[in-house]
């Protein structure tokens, strides 16, 4: 369960460029639920997602994930939290362009205690699930947008996380690929994963497998 309590984020606090990104945001997402953070560009959705992923620390407020307070986690514990609980699908995929598909997919598992065989098995299974195994030796920079997204999803899921966060996942995809992404989300929802998607793409609105929609405009919950 994800509990967001009175989260406020101010960038460049105390400087002339100070920006209020989020103000007093609170909501709960239950285990296995799919939630949509919607709102126009620049409303603070990605910032909120980064705070839930412990990639960013809130200025005030707290985030509780399965009883663990993650808002002020020290850096190393934040990394462990992400490795053990989260799969993050970034808007620009954030693949390492000079690595192969397989090398990108296994990236979260490299520092783990798993053996090489176990890691390869997990990567193979994730790549098969998202139909990218035939490109496993290709460099990420040589893939199409849709293929890159499938690699990003496979990487996010390779460590079998309980929670999946997706930041504008269809922003760089055409409508056909966006629809196929929806299929992936539905599969993950059916598998009981907790999913949080930050998007302003109407394709996600009013879908039957989306349990909760949270609207944010100019950093405030509507």
């Amino acid at each position: 369960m994800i509990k967001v309590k009175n989260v406020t984020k101010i960038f460049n606090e105390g400087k002339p460029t100070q920006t209020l990104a989020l103000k007093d945001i609170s909501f709960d997402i239950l285990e296995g639920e799919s939630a949509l953070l919607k709102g126009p560009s620049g409303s603070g959705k990605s910032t909120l997602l980064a705070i839930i992923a412990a990639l960013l620390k809130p200025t005030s407020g707290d985030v509780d994930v399965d009883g663990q307070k993650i808002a002020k986690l020290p850096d190393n514990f934040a990394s462990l939290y992400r490795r053990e609980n989260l799969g993050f699908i970034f808007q620009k995929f954030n693949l390492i362009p000079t690595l192969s598909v397989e090398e990108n997919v296994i990236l979260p598992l490299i520092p783990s205690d798993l053996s090489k065989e176990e890691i390869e098995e997990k990567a193979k299974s994730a790549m098969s699930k998202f139909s990218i195994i035939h490109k496993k030796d290709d460099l990420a920079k040589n893939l199409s947008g849709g293929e890159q997204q499938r690699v990003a999803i496979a990487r996010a899921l390779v460590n079998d996380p309980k929670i999946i966060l997706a930041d504008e996942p269809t922003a760089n995809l055409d409508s056909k690929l966006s629809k196929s992404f929806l299929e992936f989300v539905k599969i993950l929802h059916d598998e009981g994963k907790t999913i949080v998607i930050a998007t302003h793409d109407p394709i996600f609105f009013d879908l039957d497998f989306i349990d909760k929609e949270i609207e944010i405009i100019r950093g405030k919950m509507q």
Partner: protein
Amino acid sequence: MKRFFNILLFEYALSSLKRRGGKNIFIFFIFFLLIFLLSSIFFIANSIKYELRHTLKSLPDITLQKLQAGREQNIDISRVDKIATIEGVSEVTPRVWGYYYFKNAGANFSIVGVDRFTPSYKKSIQKVVDKFDSTIFDKNDTMVVGAGVKKILEKNYYSKYFNFIKPNGDFKRVYIAGTFKGTTALESNDIILLSAQNVREIFGLSEDKATDITLRVPNPKEIPTVAKKLIEMFPDCRAITKSDLKISYENIIDYKSGIFLAIFIIALFTFFIIIYDKASGLSSDEKREIGIQKAVGWKISDILLQKGYEAFIISFVSFFSAITFAIFYVYFLDAPMLKSIFTGYSILKPPFKLPFVLDFQTIVLIFFATVPLYLAATIIPSWFAATLEADEVIR
């Protein structure tokens, strides 16, 4: 163990080095060149120092030379008895020796006259004399040569004997009765031992003359006093003490090391440019990669370990290959080019091979002066990037 060595992280570090191949090959090359130059210079210097140390050890405490118009002249043997009366002098030996230029080989040999009844001033030569049948040095037509001299003679078709040309133009045939390997390579490559009588004949030296006179003074504190007394006794002579010779040898080496200091500074300067380049920050691609690694769950320590592996691979591979290459270059190839800067004056002499003197202290010194510096220059900027919020780096 797993904490410090993770095979997957190591493989990732290898792939990372490969991905930035051009840059890393450049760093490897500069690092290799620096360590190769440094170690070669130190190896050559160590070898030459070893030669000098042994040469100095065997030098007489005082050498008395007669001068006329500032040039060395042969000295009367009759002076030996007078010198022996000076207190503190334990041994006085008239020496008969000189340089013989062998034109065909372009080499200078040191011809040393030995007398089996008079102990040699030089322990190493005495050892050689003791090793051989003493009658060799009694005969009129036999000699013992250094192993290097033998090689030079053989190359010029003198495998059994050598024809010396006397001052009057006549030949003197002397047969090679044996060869020896000296304590130092210089000795082996330079010296020919003959009876004093033979040397006199080859150089046209009369019976009452010697090239110079050497003295042994057991108490080192008495050497300056004895030298002073000698000059008072024989105003036409100069007394060269062991410490005078040591200073002049050291001056030669210091001058040579000055040249190398300049080369070394240039190499070090290049090295620091690389270090500065690395320390001044990572490229945006490298920073972004670190951000992605953190975002997918890598801890700061994982990132630093990977960067540490990368720096370790580059610096260790360059270090060990440079050291190996330097050993091969100095001791097997005999340091072409570099050696001649150190031993320029001895080109006229028969060439000598640098003795194998591997000083681990020097290797450890070079290691600690370079490798940790490079490791730090790689890890510190990575640590700065890894401690930034990942979101800031990948957005």
